[in-house]
C-alpha cells in the first residue's frame, strides 16, 4: 500500500511541493507518462491504482462467531406478528403490552424480524413492559438483547412494585400499639351519648397527628367509639371540618397499609380516592360507588378522575358507568380522552360492542368505519378504538373474541 499512500501524499501536498513517487507498481507507473506538468500523471497513476486496488482487494479472514442459543418457543401466528409490527410502528405501548401478554399466555414468541423494533421501544422510558418483552423474545432473543449496550435496561429485572415505603404489605408495616394509644388519646368522640362531636387534643396537631393516626390500628376506632368508618367520617366532617384533611389522610394511609376494606370503601365514598386506596376497596363496593355516581349533582370531572384510578379489569358496572359518563358529553376534551383511553384498556373485551354502539350514534357513516362527522363527545371514539384493537389482537392469535367473565 505504500505506493498508493505515497501517491495520496503527493496529491495532498500538491505536485508543486512533492514529486510523483517512484514506488508505484510497474503496471501503474507506466500510466503516469511524464510531462512538464505533473498534475495529470498523478491522476492517471491514481486512476490505474484505484482499479488495481479495487480489483485486487481480497476480504480478510474472520473467526467463526460464537453460536447463539436455539429458540425453543414457537412463534406467534403470522397475522399476530403483522399486527405487532403495526402496533410498534404506531408507538402504542399499552396495546403492545396487551399483545405481549396474550403472546406470553400462549407460550409463544416474537419473530426475529421484529426484535429490533421491540427492543428499541422497550429501552425507551414509556415503552412496553420489559418483563413481557423478555418473555416474548425467548432465549435466542435475550442473547440478541445482550449484544447491544443501548438495550441493557430491557434486561434488568423490574424494580420492586410501589417504589416508596408506603407500599401496602401489612406484615411489613404493623401498626404500633403506642401509636394506637396516642391516636385514641388525641382524637376523641365526645360525649359518649347525646349530641356527639369529634375533637382533637391538643388542637392543631398537624403532620404529627396524621402520622399517629396512620400508624394506629383502624379496628380500634370502632371498638372505642362504637362508630363504623362511614358514620365516623360523617361525624368528623360535620363537627370538626378543620381536621378533616389531616385525619382523612392519616386514615387513608392506614387503610392502605392494613388493607382495611371497610375503611377504604368509606374513605372512597367520602371522596378520598388514590390508586392505592381504591385497590383495597372490594369490587362490589366499587360497583356500588359507580352506580351512585353520574347524577346531576356530581362533579363529572371528578368522577372521571376517580374512574381512571380504578385498576383493571373493570366490571361491567364500572364500564357502563364510564361509557355513560363519556356519552353524557359533560367532560372536556382532555378529561374525556383520558377516560376513554383508560376505559378502552381496562374494560372487559365483551364491552367492545357496547362501546362501538355508543360511539356509533355519533358516526355519520359507520359502515365505512370512518370517524364521525358530527363531533362525538371526547373519549368515546378512543374507548371504542382501543377496544377494537384489543379484540383484533385476540383474533390475530387465532381466537374469536372471548367473552371474558367479569370479576
Amino acid at each position, binding site marked *: 500500500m505504500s505506493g498508493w499512500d505515497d501517491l495520496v501524499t503527493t496529491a495532498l501536498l500538491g505536485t508543486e511541493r512533492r514529486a510523483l513517487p517512484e514506488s508505484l507498481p510497474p503496471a501503474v507507473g507506466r500510466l503516469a507518462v511524464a510531462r512538464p506538468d505533473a498534475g495529470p500523471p498523478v*491522476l492517471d497513476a491514481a486512476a490505474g491504482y484505484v482499479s488495481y486496488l479495487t480489483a485486487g482487494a481480497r476480504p480478510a479472514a474472520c473467526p467463526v462467531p460464537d453460536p447463539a442459543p436455539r429458540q425453543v418457543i414457537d412463534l406467534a401466528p403470522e397475522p399476530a406478528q403483522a399486527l405487532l409490527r403495526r402496533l410498534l410502528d404506531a408507538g402504542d405501548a399499552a396495546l403492545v403490552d396487551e399483545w405481549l401478554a396474550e403472546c406470553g399466555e400462549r407460550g409463544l414468541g416474537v419473530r426475529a424480524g421484529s426484535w429490533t423494533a421491540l427492543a428499541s421501544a422497550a429501552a425507551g422510558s414509556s415503552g412496553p413492559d420489559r418483563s413481557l418483552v423478555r418473555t416474548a423474545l425467548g432465549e435466542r432473543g435475550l442473547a440478541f438483547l445482550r449484544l447491544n449496550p443501548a438495550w441493557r435496561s430491557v434486561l434488568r429485572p423490574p424494580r420492586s412494585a410501589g417504589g416508596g415505603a408506603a407500599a401496602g404489605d401489612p406484615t411489613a408495616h404493623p401498626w404500633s400499639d403506642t401509636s394506637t394509644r396516642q391516636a385514641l388519646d388525641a382524637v376523641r368522640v365526645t360525649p359518649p351519648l347525646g349530641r356527639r362531636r369529634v375533637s382533637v387534643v391538643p388542637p392543631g396537631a398537624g403532620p404529627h397527628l396524621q402520622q399517629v393516626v396512620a400508624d394506629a390500628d383502624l379496628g380500634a376506632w370502632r371498638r372505642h367509639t362504637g362508630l363504623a368508618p362511614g358514620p365516623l367520617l360523617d361525624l368528623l366532617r360535620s363537627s370538626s371540618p378543620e381536621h378533616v384533611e389531616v385525619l382523612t389522610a392519616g386514615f387513608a394511609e392506614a387503610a392502605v397499609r392494613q388493607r382495611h376494606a371497610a375503611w377504604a370503601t368509606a374513605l372512597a365514598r367520602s371522596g378520598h380516592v388514590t390508586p392505592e386506596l381504591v385497590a383495597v376497596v372490594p369490587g362490589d363496593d366499587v360497583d356500588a360507588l359507580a352506580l351512585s355516581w353520574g347524577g346531576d349533582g356530581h362533579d363529572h370531572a371528578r368522577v372521571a378522575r376517580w374512574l381512571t384510578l380504578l385498576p383493571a379489569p373493570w366490571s361491567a358496572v364500572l364500564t357502563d358507568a364510564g361509557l355513560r359518563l363519556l356519552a353524557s358529553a359533560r367532560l372536556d376534551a382532555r378529561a374525556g380522552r383520558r377516560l376513554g383511553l383508560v376505559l378502552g384498556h381496562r374494560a372487559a373485551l365483551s364491552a367492545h360492542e357496547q362501546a362501538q354502539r355508543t360511539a356509533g350514534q355519533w358516526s355519520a357513516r359507520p359502515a365505512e368505519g370512518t370517524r364521525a362527522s358530527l363531533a362525538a363527545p371526547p373519549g368515546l371514539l378512543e374507548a371504542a378504538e382501543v377496544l377494537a384493537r384489543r379484540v383484533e389482537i385476540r383474533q390475530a392469535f387465532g381466537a374469536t373474541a372471548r367473552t371474558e367473565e367479569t370479576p
Partner: protein
Amino acid sequence: MAGTSIPLMAREAGRWSALGHRDGLLWGSYLGSAPDPHRTSVLVEGSARSRATTCSCPSRQVPCKHAVSLLQLWSAGQVPDASPPDHVSTWRAAVSHPAKPRRTMHPEAAAKRAAQRQERVRLGLDELDVWLGDQVRAGLAALRRGGYGPVDQMAARMVDAQAPGVAGMLRALPARFVGDDWPARTLEQLALIRLLVAAHRRLDDLPSDLAETVRSRVGYPTSRESVLARPAVRDQWAVLGHVDVVDYRLTSRRVWLRGERSGRWAVLLSFAAGGASLDSTVLPGVTIDADLHFYPGAGQHRALVGTEHGRVDGVPDVPGVGARRAAEQLGDLVAADPWAERLPVVLHGAPVPPEQDGGRWLFRGEDGAAVPLLPGVEAWPLMARSMGDPVDVAGEWTRRGFLPLGFLPHPLDPFFSVEVVSR
C-alpha cells in the same frame, strides 16, 4: 380523515366549478382570492409513471393546494365523470409521452447534431482537465479549503457543456472531504473523473461496448425508445432489494432484480423531483416474468421493463456467494466499467458485531472471509435474523463496504427500508 374535514370540504367544494374526471384524469376550476379561477389538472393513473399535476396558480409547491383539494374531492366521490376539455387532453398527452417531440429527424441532421454535441462535450472536458491538473498541482488541501463553491461552479460548467454525468461526479466530491481517509477518497474521485476525460478523447477508438459506457458516464442522453428498441431479455426477474437516495433536490430509487434463468442482474432507476413520488410499480418481494431491455455499455445493469408477462408474490431461492467470490466479481465489474460504484450480490454468511463501541460491523461469508458493512448501516435487524447462523442477504457491494438491502427469501420481511441521504 379527521372528523372536522367534512364541513371544510363542503366549503372547498363550493369554490370548484367545471369539475370532471375520466380514466384517472381529474380537472376543475378553482375560484380563490384571485379574480380568475385557477385551472387545475391531476393525472392519477394511466401510462405516466408517477402522479402528475398542473395548475395555473402561481404556487411553486408541487402538488399545489388546489391539486390536493381536487384529489380530496375526487376521493370523496364528488367529481363527476365527464369528457375532458381540450386543454386537459393536451396536457395529458404531454405528460404521458414526454419524449415524443422530434420524432422524425433526418439521419444527416441527426448525425450533425450528435457531432455538435460531442464537440461541445469535448471542449467542456478539456477545460475540466486543466482544472483537474490545477487541483493536483496546488494540492488537495487547497481544494478542500475551497469547499462547495469552486466544485459546484465547475459542475455547472459541465452541465452547460452537456456532460451532466461528469457534473454529478464533481458534485459528489465535497462529500468526500470528511473522515480520516478524505485525501485518498478525494484523489480516487478526481482520478476517475480524469479517466473519463481521457476516455472521452479516445471515444471513437474504444471498443463499442466501452464507448457506450463512457458515453453513459459522461451523460449523453439515451432515449427510452432507443433502449426499448434493444433486444429483450426475458426471464423470471426476482426483485431482491431497493434503495432510495435523497439528494437535496432529487430523490432517486434503485430497484435490483436478478434473472432466475440467466443469473443476470438488472437495476431499475427512477427519479422524483419537487415532492413527486417515486415509481413503485416494481418493488422487492415479487418476481416478474418480463422483457427487460438493457441500456448499452459494458458492465451495464441499468434496464427498462418492456412487456411484463406476469408476476407472482415471493422470490425464488438465490444461491448466495462468499465474500471472496463477491470480491472477484467486483474485480470483473471494474474491468468492464472502471467507474462502476456497486456490485449487486447475494451474500451467504452472517453479520459480526463490532468488537468495541464505534467499530464497524462485518459480514462474514461462509468462506471465512469478511467484508465491512457500509458505515451507518442499521445492522441490528440483520443480526436478529442471523445470530451467527448463515443467511442470504441481497445488497450492494461497494468499495467502502456492503450495503444490505433485503433478506432472502423474504426481501421485505425485516422491514428494510433503506434510505441514503447524500450531502
